[in-house]
């Protein structure tokens, strides 16, 4: 019999209690994977979407909580373009909209001469022409989900738009989005002359400190706006920060509950096995060996729970991001880093939850323990 086998035998003696403990850990780990995976996925979707457009800096109204609710005069774009180091500026107006079949998508409006169009790969059709209204290009993900193709009409917020192109663009958010000329978008959401923000390309962005210098100059010239490097967008968006904080808070609460469950299970186990601990002492087991036995039992519980939790969390996140209302906005991001974090979390839970019961086991008086009924 190997040592780890002894730990498993001990866990099998109270199968229901062990299963419930494993379930508690699994829920905590699944919650962590799903919530943090969702939060990271949301951030990644933003970053992918911005990276695909070749944006170096993004400007939004200072202090705004939700980027998409911001509203800035589109005319400011010309002023921004005058700042030395700015290579190109494009206003963009975005809003989360409901398309047909309950599909939720990010709808954006861009000027027809914007550099932002260069970031998308046109799969079929063409881009909107200058002066053209009520036309859209549709991400290929959204096109497939809605079973729409070139020439078909798409209802956005109840208004029909003709699909003139199907495109592909970084990440789920891009591929499930719909883009139209800026004026059409302004008319659709009744924000004539307004944009949500400006995408800015910097001249010679590869030069060290160049982007930061232009950012600083812009910030000085336009104190009412906030200029953010696209790579830092997730740090600046208060909604993303809030979502991340909620994800970690919920995970932390689930972890604490799992910790209490493990603690309770192993303390009960120490109490029930008091006599056995006395026997182990009588046959010469060292305190360290008794300690390791209980730590091993705690870790075995959390590793099993962690395994189930990883699976459940991954499947749950996949199911969640496949919902029509979610798939255009969020993609789950369960990379090796997150899996490793979840695995480490399970180990830490196991060790933390079993340390005190294990210590209690080593402190039992052997003679009293042998007489324990």
């Amino acid at each position: 019999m190997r040592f780890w086998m002894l730990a498993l035998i001990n866990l099998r003696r109270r199968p229901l209690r062990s299963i419930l403990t494993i379930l508690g850990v699994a829920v905590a780990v699944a919650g962590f994977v799903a919530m943090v995976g969702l939060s990271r996925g949301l951030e990644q979707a933003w970053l992918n979407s911005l990276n695909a457009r070749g944006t170096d800096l993004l400007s939004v109204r200072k202090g705004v909580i939700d980027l998409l609710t911001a509203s800035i005069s589109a005319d400011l774009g010309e002023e921004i373009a005058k700042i030395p180091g700015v290579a190109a500026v494009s206003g963009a107006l975005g809003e989360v909209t409901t398309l047909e079949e309950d599909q939720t998508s990010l709808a954006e409006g861009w000027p027809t001469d914007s550099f932002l169009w260069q970031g998308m790969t046109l799969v079929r059709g063409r881009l909107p022409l200058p002066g053209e209204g009520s036309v859209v290009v549709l991400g290929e993900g959204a096109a497939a989900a809605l079973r729409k193709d070139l020439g078909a009409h798409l209802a956005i917020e109840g208004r029909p738009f003709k699909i003139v192109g199907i495109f592909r663009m970084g990440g789920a958010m891009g591929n499930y989005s719909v883009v139209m000329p800026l004026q059409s978008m302004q008319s659709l959401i009744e924000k004539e002359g307004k944009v949500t923000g400006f995408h800015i390309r910097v001249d010679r962005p590869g030069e060290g400190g160049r982007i930061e210098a232009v950012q600083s100059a812009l910030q000085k010239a336009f104190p009412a706006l906030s200029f953010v490097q696209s790579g830092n967008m997730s740090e600046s968006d208060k909604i993303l920060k809030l979502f991340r904080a909620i994800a970690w808070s919920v995970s932390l609460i689930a972890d604490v509950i799992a910790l209490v469950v493990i603690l309770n299970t192993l303390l009960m186990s120490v109490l029930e096995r008091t006599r056995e601990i006395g026997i182990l002492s009588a046959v010469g087991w060292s305190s360290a060996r008794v300690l390791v036995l209980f730590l091993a039992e705690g870790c075995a519980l959390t590793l099993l729970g962690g395994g189930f939790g990883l699976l459940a969390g991954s499947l749950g996140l996949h199911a969640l991001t496949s919902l029509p209302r979610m798939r255009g906005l969020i993609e789950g991001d369960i990379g090796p880093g997150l899996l490793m974090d979840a695995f480490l979390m399970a180990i830490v839970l196991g060790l933390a939850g079993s340390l005190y019961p294990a210590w209690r086991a080593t402190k039992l008086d052997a003679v009293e323990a042998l007489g324990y009924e």
Partner: protein
Amino acid sequence: MALRDVSLAVAPGEHLAIMGPSGSGKSTLLHILCGLDRPTTGRVKFGGVEPESARAWRALRARKIGFVFQAFNLIPTLTARQNVEIAMFGVLGAAKERAAKALYLLGRVGLSERADHRPAELSGGEKQRLAIARSLANSPAVILADEPTGNLDSKTSSQILDLLDVIRSSEGTALVVVTHDEAIAHRASRLICIRDGMVDSDRS
């Protein structure tokens, strides 16, 4: 105070019985002899050396001392073989070695056929044989037996005592038996009587 002015030495291979009425302190003496209890005053030496810490006593119990209890003290969730193996953790490194030695010892006490049975499936006599096999796990210098036949009928008691005698004589292991049964006490080569925590008599 459970014991007072007790001074005794146990020679290698000796068969010693400690006798006395209930509450006389004989079990306490046994516990002190193996370091499960520590005396408030006085010293206990093993092989001329005084173990100074609980850790040193645990190491001694693992390698030099076998224990047989009246209540058997077997682990109910483990099989007979595993109950013997449990005493070898930290002494014999490889799992295969532990398993092989456990089977050999079960054979010595006549439990080969019961190796994969749990204690609940064994009779009282078989349980005590199993406890004896466990006490032999690490070839101890001394076996301490606390009322080893207290829970057994007379026929089974006799078989268990015979087994302990055979082991003592064949292995050269010292045997210290605590009992309040005169018949058992008289099987030993030396008898110490304890009364009210003091040695009343010590005769060979």
